[in-house]
């Protein structure tokens, strides 16, 4: 069974993607614009987050309240987020309400009011989100690890810095939005109960005359990397470590995903078995794959009590390294089953599919169907995994620890 995909590249650089799905009444959309936090001006880190918040406070003819009310009346489940390279607007609703929601989203992107009186609260909310990270040490650990691992500013935390947020002004934010909310590199993906020709006509009407701007791409600088300890009087020690992995589109990509499964795909995987199951050192230890356009990494987290921190760290590093010695056929078979089952179950969700379409096109310039993905997963052998891990070995870790004391890093030298 193959999916019904549609692709259309508009003249000014915006791409429309569609997947027709039967037996669902919903249609989910994911719209990305190239205004992620990597594009924040260097002295205004957090601009993207302020922009995202501010754009929702009135757009077109509608005030904040009218905007919210309109989306609520349409039963729209919406979510806005700022990632490294993109700002993402996602919305799920009944298929018959998609067109009305898209009209509103077009207003938000193209005609946000950005009024003086709503700037202050928008910035204040981002400042508060940043301050709240102090009360979420596990999450802070993951966010700051990513910031230090990727070439700067690609991994930057979307909330920015207190200085960066303080430097923002309404005028500079308006310029930032005008410069970066642009069709070139934007993607509108819709999955579910979809009328493709109608969507095309609607996109032409709503976005066809969107002016093109071509802002300069951020110039990546070498990553901060290294080992960092942030002291905190916390009950747990939060340990994050990252090392390089094959980006999406790389020849070793599928082998990297299989390796991820073997290391951390479930309770029978290496990390959970050795660190939690057999030794009871942690409640949570996990490693996951993440990719930007040209860089990717394996990001590992372990939370443990202070008296077990060194042992947990050494055990976790040992398991990541041991993967490079090889994986068994049984592990390969299991990883394939897990990956394929996840793909099929993801295929039932319109919002998961809309996100996948946008991601595929951004990274690869085309869409991948279930057959292609299953086939690629099935063709990964133990040898392929070994080749992948040789090309991307478990070394040169970036480490971030949050807790009462730093952790002995001696094992990294071994």
């Amino acid at each position, binding site marked *: 069974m193959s999916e019904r995909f549609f692709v259309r590249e508009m003249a000014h650089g915006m791409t429309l993607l569609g997947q027709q799905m039967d037996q669902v009444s919903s249609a989910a959309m994911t719209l990305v614009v190239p205004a992620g936090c990597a594009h924040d001006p260097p002295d205004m880190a957090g601009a993207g987050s302020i922009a995202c918040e501010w754009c929702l406070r009135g757009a077109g003819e509608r005030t904040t309240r009218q905007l919210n009310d309109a989306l609520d009346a349409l039963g729209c489940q919406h979510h806005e987020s700022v990632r490294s390279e993109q700002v993402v607007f996602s919305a799920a609703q009944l298929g018959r309400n998609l067109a009305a929601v898209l009209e509103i989203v077009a207003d938000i992107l193209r005609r946000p009011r950005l009024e003086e009186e709503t700037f202050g609260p928008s910035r204040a909310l981002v400042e508060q989100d940043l301050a709240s990270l102090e009360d979420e040490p596990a999450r802070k650990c993951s966010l700051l690890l990513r910031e230090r691992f990727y070439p700067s500013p690609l991994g930057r935390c979307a909330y920015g810095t207190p200085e960066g947020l303080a430097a923002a002004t309404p005028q500079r934010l308006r310029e930032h939005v005008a410069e970066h909310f642009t069709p070139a590199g934007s993607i509108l993906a819709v999955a579910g109960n979809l009328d493709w020709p109608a969507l095309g006509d609607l996109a032409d009407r709503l976005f066809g005359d969107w002016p093109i701007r071509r802002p300069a791409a951020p110039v990546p600088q070498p990553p901060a990397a290294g080992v960092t300890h942030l002291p905190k009087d916390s009950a747990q020690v939060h340990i994050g470590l990252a090392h390089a992995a094959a980006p999406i589109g790389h020849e070793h990509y599928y082998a990297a995903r299989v390796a991820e499964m073997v290391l951390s795909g*479930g309770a*029978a995987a290496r990390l959970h078995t050795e660190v939690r199951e057999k030794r009871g050192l942690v409640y949570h230890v996990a490693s996951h794959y993440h990719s930007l356009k040209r860089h990717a990494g394996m990001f590992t987290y372990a939370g443990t009590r202070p008296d077990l921190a060194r042992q947990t760290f050494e055990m976790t590093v040992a398991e990541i390294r041991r993967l490079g010695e090889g994986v068994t056929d049984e592990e390969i078979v299991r990883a394939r089953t897990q990956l394929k089952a996840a793909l*099929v179950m993801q295929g039932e969700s319109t919002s998961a599919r809309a996100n996948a379409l946008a991601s595929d096109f951004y990274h690869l310039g085309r869409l991948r169907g279930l057959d292609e993905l299953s086939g690629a997963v099935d063709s990964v052998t133990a040898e392929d995994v070994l080749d992948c891990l040789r090309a991307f070995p478990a070394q040169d870790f970036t480490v971030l620890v949050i807790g009462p004391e730093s952790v002995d890093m001696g094992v990294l030298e071994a």
Partner: protein
Amino acid sequence: MQFTHRKLDNGLTIVAEVRPTAASMAAGFFVRSGSRDEPPELAGVSHFLEHMTFKGTARRTALDVNREFDELGANYNAFTSEENTVYYGAVLPEFQDRLMDLLCDILRPSLRQEDFDVEKGVILDEIARYEDMPRYRLYELLMGEYFLPHSLGHSVLGTAESVGAMRRDQMQAYFSRRYSPGNVTLVGVGNVDFDALVGKAAEQCSGWQPCDVTRDTSPPPPAARRKVHTDPNVAREQIGLASPAPSSQGDERYAATLAATVLGDVTGSRLFYALVDPALADEASVVYDALDGSGVFLTFISAGPEQASEALRIARRELAGFLDDGPTDAELLAAKNKIASGATLKGEVPMGRLTAVGYDWVYRGEYVPLADQIEALFAVTRQEVLEMARRYDLSSATVVALGPLEQL
């Protein structure tokens, strides 16, 4: 879509909402047991037991259990609440039999001493993990302040002391008392082969010995207490309010869900416009928690220390003000649309329906198709919501705070 159910001789009930065209199936054992059923000296035993269920049976080690779930490509987990312990998994339909073999088996765990000792360390680490989450600490403090000495105020995790002191034989006795087949419901959703589901349950669970299981469901007396917990290590002030609400069995639960949405949904609610929109708080929400024989409205606010008192004052004003006129027509319709839309989207995936179908049966012994629930939701009038709000006076609440402030 079709609903079927069967009951084994030993009292185990099996229910299923079957949709043959779904791409997956989800199944779960719903055990009517949680922290409210624990004697105080066994605080955390339901949750610890949930962990131990995955640590092996007569014919499987813990590693066998983990490996088999992963071999099925299962999306699986378990959770423990004040009232329920639920074990569930979703798989492609061809794996139904193997999933059921595994789930039925682990519901009779061996509770080996060695596994018990190792897993105790994991639980202690989980307790430490939640100690680093002020939001969760506030939830426990609020439930305790509002409900105790009523058992709904018990902590689900327990404490390092109560878990540290727990013995294997105590857990075994608790298991025997609570995991009687009459106290358990097996739920299936999606592309389910119901006959095979029943067959497997009959084959593996018929030997489960029934016993009488009781739960005192009388509601707690309403309380309007106030407690401020000062912790300079917490950066933002966490504030919680709790007040009585309709029970799971009450007819007013749709009205209660709507009231919570109008008052405190993430978007477009009274608290959103009063607190989050002007950035007086970064988070403000109201949830309706429908429990066995009682219910509670919970309000959560997160604010900077300098704004916390003002945020609390405004929240209380909004909750009290709701009793004047209730929701406007526009607010009520928006709430209905949001809830209906959310439930529809969630229900497109079998796993998204599992808890709803399970709880409908566990709490009310009924099955209601989603379309009927949405219809019942849309039938609720403004007057009904207002009357419910007045009957369950939201303005009279227990208030708890956790954060840097000495007083609010």
